[in-house]
């Protein structure tokens, strides 16, 4: 049970951990845009160096970041195969021509660049968001960034509050589930053997107390919020008002500069470029 961690926040002291979360969200979005702007080998090299730079700056263990790529390995493998087998190129670039398969050099290049793109996509979002930002900070930042929708009458604050509460409750409920399971195990409940039907039935003594406690907690929280005169977002101020500092602008402009660099490199006709 303890292995279920929500998000994968990794506590550390690093320039990226300290960035303003709103800026981090924008930076992450720009980074994703950058990965899709890349066209030729040079711009991909620049992208890769940006990804490496951000890992170094974030002081995350490299193994942790690498593990983040694991869930999409299958997707990477499938796209690579499709690229290798279905890309067509100049007739003089045929590498393998056997039975119905024709592999062009372009296909291999495309596959390699795609791998770089995918890996950078995961590394960028995880380094800027999941590993260095707590989910609660993230919902706060999203509330701030979505302010234009407020003007249109969308209850942005309420959605953000619901999200925050939901996120806050997940670890609590995981904890609670763990406790209840232990308590029932102490009375001889068996969750790990028997047929599927038996196992499902064995969960009843866990689910019922869990639901009861979830409703109880929800009610307690609602009462506690009302006691403190919570009435939604209208005129509500923050305990921690976030300020954007110079270093946040540096990060933002840094990424924009990289983006411009990528666009410039794309126009140079050097090396291979994705069609």
């Amino acid at each position: 049970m303890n292995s279920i961690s929500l998000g994968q926040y990794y506590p550390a002291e690093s320039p990226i951990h300290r960035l303003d979360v709103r800026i981090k969200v924008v930076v992450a979005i720009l980074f994703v845009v950058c990965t899709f702007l890349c066209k030729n080998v040079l711009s991909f090299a620049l992208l890769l160096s940006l990804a490496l730079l951000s890992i170094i700056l974030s002081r995350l263990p490299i193994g942790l970041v690498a593990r983040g790529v694991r869930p999409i390995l299958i997707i990477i493998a499938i796209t690579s195969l499709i690229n290798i087998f279905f890309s067509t190129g100049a007739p003089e670039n045929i590498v393998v021509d056997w039975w119905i398969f024709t592999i062009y050099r372009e296909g291999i290049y495309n596959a390699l660049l795609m791998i770089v793109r995918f890996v950078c996509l995961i590394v960028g979002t995880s380094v800027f968001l999941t590993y260095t930002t707590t989910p609660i900070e993230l919902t706060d930042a999203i509330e701030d960034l979505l302010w234009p929708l407020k003007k249109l009458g969308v209850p942005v604050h309420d959605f953000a509050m619901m999200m925050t509460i939901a996120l806050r409750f997940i670890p609590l409920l995981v904890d609670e589930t763990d406790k209840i399971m232990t308590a029932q195990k102490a009375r001889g409940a068996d969750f790990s053997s028997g047929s599927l039907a038996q196992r499902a039935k064995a969960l009843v003594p866990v689910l019922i107390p869990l639901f009861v406690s979830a409703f109880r907690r929800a009610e307690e929280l609602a009462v506690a919020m009302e006691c403190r005169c919570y009435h939604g977002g209208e005129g509500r101020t923050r305990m921690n008002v976030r300020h954007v500092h110079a270093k946040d602008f540096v990060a933002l402009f840094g990424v924009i500069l990289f983006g411009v660099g990528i666009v410039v490199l794309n126009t140079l006709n050097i090396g291979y470029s994705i069609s």
Partner: protein
Amino acid sequence: MARITLSGVSYSYGKKTPYEIKALDGVNIEIADGKITGIIGHTGSGKSTLVGAIGGLIEPDEGQVLIDGADVWKNRKKIREHRFRVGLVMQYPEYQLFEETIRRDIAFGPRNMGLSDEEIEERVVEAARFVELPEALLEKSPFELSGGEKRRAAIAGVIAMRPDVLVLDEPAAGLDPRGRAAIFRNIAEYRRATGKTVIIVSHSMEDVATYCDELVVMSGAKVIMHDTPNKVFSNPEFLVKNGLDLPQIARLNMYLREKGIDLGEGIYTVEGAFNKIMELSSKK
């Protein structure tokens, strides 16, 4: 009877994460058979983890938990049998009630043991009697009971398994003084009637001083003292240094001694102090 021994038991939460916490660090203890042992220590000292290990619900990273000299984790398939022998009542056990009636909930443990219906019924009635739960309440839903009644029903659910060792983690937490006293009275009566080993985790120095035969003092994931309440409470500086309080009566005793009235050693319960003071005053 059952002899519980822990040898070199260590356990950590959140292994291999940045949040790793060592909850037990090389714990060696032997629990006195047929006595009430109290486990005290401030929050986060590893008390709950210790009873989890004793109850066979936490598998130690290192070391062994032995019952009558046999390692309980040697045959993992038989861990359930150990859990039936060592009945663990967790903190706030009322939150684990799930059946439609209290009777069926108390019967959950015995039913998992595969006993006959008659045997289960007999045990349910016996367990309810130990915790002074009126028979009329047995047919009610857990939601209709008060907090104290639910707590007692949950304790009955473990007693009904007739464990050789009954382990209670903070059995009186969150109850009013009358509820606390009732729970401890029930436990003391249970031990007297069955002669079985009881282990109680508690924050309250008063409660352990009154009801326990032996005390295990924990601090920083280690057992730092294991002795009779008399010896433990005769060393106030040591307790205070480890973040623990003295029972109020022991504090009163120290205060009186400073003022020149010596009640003598080993006075830490209301009853003991009362008798001693009456004795002293009648001499005058």
